[in-house]
Structures are given as structure tokens and as C-alpha cells.
């Protein structure tokens, strides 16, 4: 009898650990607090971000759903500078990430791909560099992706053509290279979406062999 107890209890513990609520709301507050620590905020836009509160839902520019999970982050046009920390990946229920017209710098974190409920990413008009993460292709609900007016380089990940819900894409005014995908939602995007990328070679030619100019 006792022999069965040990494996049974360990299995039970394992099961329980998977079914228990994953992240408490306060950990979303911790994530936002960690994000803030890396930023410079001369307009004091983030002064209401008090990490001692039970959740971040009363913080300004943060919106939660009925379960106190962060669904919106609206910090457009706020004169904020600094990197976009990887902690953004902890806001697992985020739907709208509006950080346009600031001075965010550094690279786009791969962790953005964890935010599977994202509907809109607007990081336009910042100082971001580096490549567009391939992980963005995991965002099946994504409808708006605006990364224009940055210093992004590297290719447009072909995997982005898997985002069937993507309605608007703006990658103009960057330093992207390679070719522009033409399948999936890319067939609907006007050429202005990719304008002013001097090293971008135009739409990809679909043939038997993929043309990869490399970049």
C-alpha cells in the first residue's frame, strides 16, 4: 500500500502544479515595475506605478480585464526612453501594446511572441534597432503591427505571412533588407507599408527556387 503512495503523491503534486493558477496578478505588477526600472521617464508619466499595490490595475496607462489581468498598455507620445525589457513577456493577457512616438531603444525582445492574445503592437516612431523577431509569427490574433520609423534591420521574417488576421502592417522608414513576402496577408498591404527601406529589394519572386539575396 505504502509503495503506491509515493509515486501517486508525486504524480498528484505534478498535476496540481500544472493546474494551479500560473501567474498571480501581482507578478504582472512586478513585471511592469521591472520594465519601468530600465526606463527614463522625464515627464513622470509612470509615477502612479506603485509596486506595493495588490495589482497594477489602478495604475495610470494600464488597463485590466475583469480578472485583473493587464490587457492594455498605453504609453504613446510620452517621452520615455530606454530598452523594452524582456519582462514584457510576463503580461500574458496583453492585447494592446501602444508605445509609439517615444525613444525606446535597443532590440525588440523575442518574448513578445509569448503574448498570444496581442491584437495590436504599435512601436512606431522610436529608436529600436536589430531584427524583427520571428517569434511575432506566433501571435495568431495580431491585427495591427506598426514598427515604422525605427532603425530596424535584417529581413522581414517570412513567417509573418502566417498571421492570417493581420490587417495593417507598417514597416516603412527602417533599414530592412531582403525581399518582401507576398503570400498570406502580405498580398493586401500597399507598397507604402514598406517604403523608405533602402536595402529592401521589393517583393519576393516565387519560383521553383527561393530567391534569397541574403542580408
Amino acid at each position, binding site marked *: 500500500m505504502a509503495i503506491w503512495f509515493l509515486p501517486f503523491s508525486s504524480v498528484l503534486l505534478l498535476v496540481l502544479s500544472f493546474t494551479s493558477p500560473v501567474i498571480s496578478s501581482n507578478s504582472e505588477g512586478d513585471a511592469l515595475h521591472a520594465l519601468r526600472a530600465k526606463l527614463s521617464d522625464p515627464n*513622470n508619466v509612470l*509615477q*502612479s506605478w*506603485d509596486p*506595493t*499595490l495588490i495589482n497594477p*490595475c*489602478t*495604475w*495610470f*496607462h494600464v*488597463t*485590466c480585464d*475583469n480578472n485583473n489581468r493587464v490587457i*492594455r498598455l*498605453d504609453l*504613446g*507620445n*510620452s517621452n520615455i526612453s530606454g530598452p523594452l525589457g524582456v519582462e514584457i513577456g510576463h503580461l500574458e493577457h496583453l492585447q*494592446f501594446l*501602444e508605445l*509609439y*512616438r517615444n525613444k525606446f531603444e535597443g532590440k525588440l525582445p523575442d518574448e513578445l511572441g509569448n503574448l498570444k492574445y496581442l*491584437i*495590436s503592437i*504599435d512601436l*512606431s516612431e522610436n529608436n529600436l534597432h536589430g531584427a524583427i523577431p520571428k517569434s511575432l509569427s506566433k501571435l495568431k490574433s495580431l491585427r*495591427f503591427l*506598426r514598427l515604422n520609423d525605427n532603425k530596424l534591420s535584417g529581413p522581414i521574417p517570412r513567417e509573418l505571412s502566417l498571421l492570417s488576421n493581420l490587417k*495593417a502592417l507598417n514597416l516603412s522608414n527602417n533599414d530592412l533588407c531582403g525581399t518582401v513576402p507576398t503570400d498570406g496577408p502580405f498580398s493586401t498591404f500597399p507598397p507604402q507599408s514598406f517604403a523608405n527601406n533602402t536595402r529592401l529589394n521589393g517583393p519576393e519572386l516565387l519560383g521553383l527556387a527561393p530567391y534569397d539575396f541574403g542580408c
Partner: protein
Amino acid sequence: MPSSPLLFFLLFLCFFCTQLSCTETEVQALLAWRSSLKDPGCLTQNWTSNNISTDPCQWRGIKCNETGSIISLSILSCQIDGTLDKFNFSSFPNLTRLEMVGNENLHGGIPKEIGTLHNLQFLDLRFNNLVGEIPVTISNLSNLEDLDLSFNLLTGAIPSAILNMSGLHSLDLGLNNLTGQIPRTIGNMFNLEELSLNGNYINGAIPREIEHLNKLTGLYLYKNELSGQIPLEIGNMTELQIADLSDNKLQGNIPATIAQLPNLSELDLENNQLNGTVPPYLGNNSNLEWIMLSNNDFIGTFPPLLCRSGKLKYLWATKNSFNSLLPITLKNCSSLIELDLSDNNIRADVSQTFGEHPNLSIINLSENRFYGRLPSNWVKNIMILSLQDNRLRGDIPKELANSTSLVILNLSNNNFSSLPLIQAPTLQSLHVSNNKLTGEFPLLQQNWTNLVTLDIGKNNFYGEMPSWIGSSFPVLKILRLGSNMFEGYIPPKLSMLNNLRLLDFSNNNLKGPIPHVLSHMHSMVVKTITNDSYIDLYFNSTVYEESIDFMWKGVEATYQETIALLTGIDLSCNAFSGEIPEDLMKLQGLISLNLSRNQLSGMIPHNIGNLTSLEVLDLSMNLLSGTIPPSILNLTGLDALNLSHNKLTGQIPSGPQLQTFNLSAFSYNDGLCGFPLPNNCLTHNNSIVPLLRNEARHKKLEVIWIICSVILGYVTGFWAYFGALYWKISLRFVVFHFTDKMQDKMMKWCGRYLH
């Protein structure tokens, strides 16, 4: 043997010489150290003499004995900049008292040579910037009675040799960066009267050996990382008067032995992880004045004998899980000055629990399950009365309403049924929301020079808002009258509330237009930049923090820490009519504007984009017409928008922030079109032409006119021609004759051509 007198003479001379050279060496050592300093600060002045001889015994801060040797050296707030590295400690064999206090530029470490001051009884090096570890050599100072190294940047663990010095009477190592554990050798310090290790990073458990400190009166271990349980042995510390173990990670119960301490007057265990019940005999045997138990996990009831000595002044036990409070505990506790039992689960009848407390100035019982009626005379000289979130009922006593000492009165979220007219001139904050109060506006007209918050929402108040409301509250910041039955018009003088930040009149029966004068509220025009203190109490209190419930971003939440930043207007659910005044758009500090569920008509002001701080805009369920002004795209901070259920028309402006709102923000507006609504707008040449309702109607009329004229033309022409033929025979002949002639001519011409 003939050399013996010579020997004696030589010895005497040497002795004399050494005495002389002692003094000389002392002066030389002082001056050598002073010249080693980057900045000697006040020593330049203090260490000088009028006469030529360099006799340090005349200098400021220096005392000598009969033989002219330095016994005491004091350097207080001297602005010296340097280290102790060149201080020749061994030159001062007679030094009994050394203090260097309050020199923020005295840095570097404590040299180990300090251990050579064999006669030292008193060593005070606090409030400097000394770094490094505490030298073990200090334990060699067998005559040392008082050691104070507090308020420095000392690191490392406390050497166990130091916490073994049986001669020490007082030890203060507080407010440094010390780590490690308290060594068990501490039991040997049986002469210790005061022990301060607060404000460090000391971990581990409090050693049991502490029981041997039977002369200890003050034990200050707060603000560290101590863990484990409070040792039972603490009950053997018979001289203990003050025990402050707060802000640690202590666990387990309070040992019952603590109740046997006869001299305990102050017990502070706040901010730990203690649990269980508080020992029931606590207070039986001692002169308890201060008891701080806040922010732990205590359960059960309060020790009934807590105030037995009749000396209990401060009882703070907020944020625990206490569930009862027996009447015997506090009913006859007339010494009580401050009481904070908030945020527990206490179920008790407030009229049985309390008696007369003439000294009680601050009482916070909020967030509990207190029930019953408020006794009328129980809080005569009260300054803060915080009873919100309980189950109290009945009348609010007149004595309270006429109090001349009351500063904060918070009775919200209870079941009170009547409120007399309030006339309390010192009042700064009044909260009676969410009760069953009725009657007209509850305040008496007077100069409310101190009132900052007025919250009477969620009651059954009725009648009109008094006209003097604008001129009587010069410092009012929050006015919350929502969810009552107020009627009539907004008094025009309301704009005189120059400090008003939050206005909530929602859910009433108010009518008339939104007055233009609302836009003169100065505090809402300015963007709130800093989270300054919201309310300035003229006395210090950590027991009460002002908060307000505010409906924002779709949910009603309690705002406490950010209360100073809230700037909003909520006029929703009334019968306001007329247009939204354009002047309202001057209020650039607004973060929330809710005018929904009224009968507002006309257009949304074209300069709505001026409200750049706006996060929430709700104009839904009105009769607003016209188009959505394009300036709405300037509201880059908007995270909640509702324009639904209106009569808006035209194309929804297109911009990054506006595109984050879905259908529900715009639905039930018949003429509205464009994303995110499914119906497209009529466009010409791909340009977005917003069709005004009037323009559309004009175009329709145009088309109708054209069609009508064409038809009219046809009809007139038809009847003019055939009518004439029908009525005038002569015309008929002429026409037919002409037709025949033409026919002949045509035949002739065709025939000639064919042949």
C-alpha cells in the same frame, strides 16, 4: 647600592619625561592627524591656542586630567574630510572618551589600532561614513562601557568577540550594512542595558542565550532579516522595558512567557510573519504602554488584560486576522491615545467594546465586522475617526457632527440611517458614502476652510444642491455626490472651487445645461505633474490614509496612493441637456470625462483633442450628433472610449490610438461609418470626404429635382405638341400638309439616287 638614589632619580626623571613626552606626543599626534586630513573643517579653529605653547588641554573638544594628559576627545559635526588612517591611537593611553559624530566626510575604515586605547570607556563614532568591517581589536578594550558605531556604512558580520564583551553597558551598531548572524556568545554580555542592531541585514534566529541579558532594558533588533521564532527565553529578561523586533521575518507564535515580563512597556512586533494567538495573559504583569502587532497573521481575540495596568496608550494591530475583541479589554482603558485595529475580521458590538476614552485622538476600526450603534460620548477629543467598512448602524451622534477637534471622519460603507447637520470647523475629510442616509445636503453653510474631501455618495440625499456650495469650500479637492437623488441645476458658483480635482455628480436627477463656468476650475486646467501629499494633517499620523472610490476604466476601484493624481468629471446618469460646452476642453488636467447617459445634444466639441491627459472618454447614451472631430486623434493616452448610442454620423477618424477600439465604442450611431464598423462610407476618388448629414440630404434633393424636371419637360413637350394638334384643326392641316410635302420630296430624292 650607591646607584639606587641615582636610579630613583633617573626613574623619576624618566617618569617625568615620559609624562612630558606623553603630552608632547599627544599634541604631535593630533596635529599630525589634522594635517593628514583633506579638509580639517572646524579643527583649524578648535585646535588653536592664544599662547605660544601648544597645550591641547585648552582646545575645544579636548579635556585633560590633572597631569595634562588627554582623557576626552570630541569632534562633533566638524565637516572634516578625511580618514582615521593616520590617527595614532597609541599616543593616547589615558583616553577614556572618544567621540567623532556627524562628520559626513569622515570615511575610510576603523583602524585596528583603536584597540590600543586601553582606558577607553566611551566610544562614539556614529553618523559618519565609515566603511569596512568592525575591527575585532575593539574587544580588547576591557574598560569599554558604551560603544556606538551606528549610522555608518560598516559591513561584514559582527565579530563574535564584540558580542562577548561582558563589560559593555550599551551597544549600538544600528543603521549600517552588517550581515551575518547574532552569535551565541551574546549571552556573556550580562552587563548590557541597551542593545541596538536595527537597520542592518542580520539574518538567522534570535539566539536563546539572550535570556542571560538580565540587565537589558532596551532590545532594538528591528529592520533586519531575522527569522525563526522568538525564543521562549525572552521571558527571563526581567529588566526588559522596550522590545522592538519589527520589520523582520520572524515566524511562529509570540511566546507566552512574554506575559511574565514585569517591566515591559513597549512591544513592537509589526511587519513580521508571526501567527497564532497573542498570549492571553499579556498585560497582566506589566506596564504596557505601546503594543504594535500590525501586519502579521495573528488570530483570535486580544488579550483581555492588555490595559490592566491602566497605562496602555498605543495599540496598533492592523492587517491581521483577529476575529474578536472582548469588552473587558478596552472598555475601561481611559489611557488610550491611538487605536488601530483596521483590516481584521473583528466581530464586536462597538457600544459594548468601548467606554469613555478622553485621551483617544486617533481610532481606526475600518474593514472589520463591528456592529451596533455608536455611543454618543465615547470620543470626545477625537481627531481621526475611521470606521468605514463595518456593519455599524443607527444615528450618527450629534456630538460627532459638532466636534471641534475632528479632522477626519470616515463612516463610509456602513448602515447608518441618519446624519445630523454637520458643523465641525476643523474637519478636513468627510466620508459618509454608501450608507442609508437621507435628507437634504448635510453640511451647514459656514466657511469650511479646511475641508479637502467631501464624499456623501451612494445614499438617499435629495433636494437641490445649495447655491453656496461654490463659495464655502476654498480647499476642496474631491466632491463626490454621486448615486443620490439630488435634483435641479448645478449651482453656477461651483466654478469657484479653485482646488477641485475630482467631481462626481453621477446617478442623480440633475438637469439643465452643463454650465460653461465648470471650465473655470483652475485645478483641472493644470496637468497634475507630481503625486504630492493629498492632505496635510498638521500632526503626524500613520494610522489613516485618505482614499476615494472612483469609477474609472470600467471598474470602481479604491485609490489611495494615487489620490493626488486623480482629476476627473463624472456627470453620467442624470438629465443634463444642451450642448457640451467648448470651454470644457480647457480642462487639460482631466484624465477622465464621463458625460454618458444624459440628454446632451449638439456636436462633440471640435477641440476635444485639447484634453491631452484624457485616459477615459465616455459620451455614450446621449443625443450627440454631427461627426467625430478629427482632433480626437490627438488623445494619445486614451485607453477607454465609448461614443455608442448617439446620433453621430460620418467617417470615424483614422489614427493609431483610435484603431485600438472595437465596435462597441461606436455602435448604435446610425450615420457612423468606417473602421471598425462594418459599413463603409461613400468616398470620391479614394479621398475621405466626411458627409455631413445636411450635405447628404441636399444631394438627395438635387437628384430628385433633376428627375422631376426631366419628366416635367417630357410631359410638357408631349402635350404641347399633340395637344395643339388635337385642338387646332388649322394647325393639323398645316402640319400634315407639311409632312406630306416632305414625304414627296424624300421619295423623289431616294428614287433618283437608286436609279
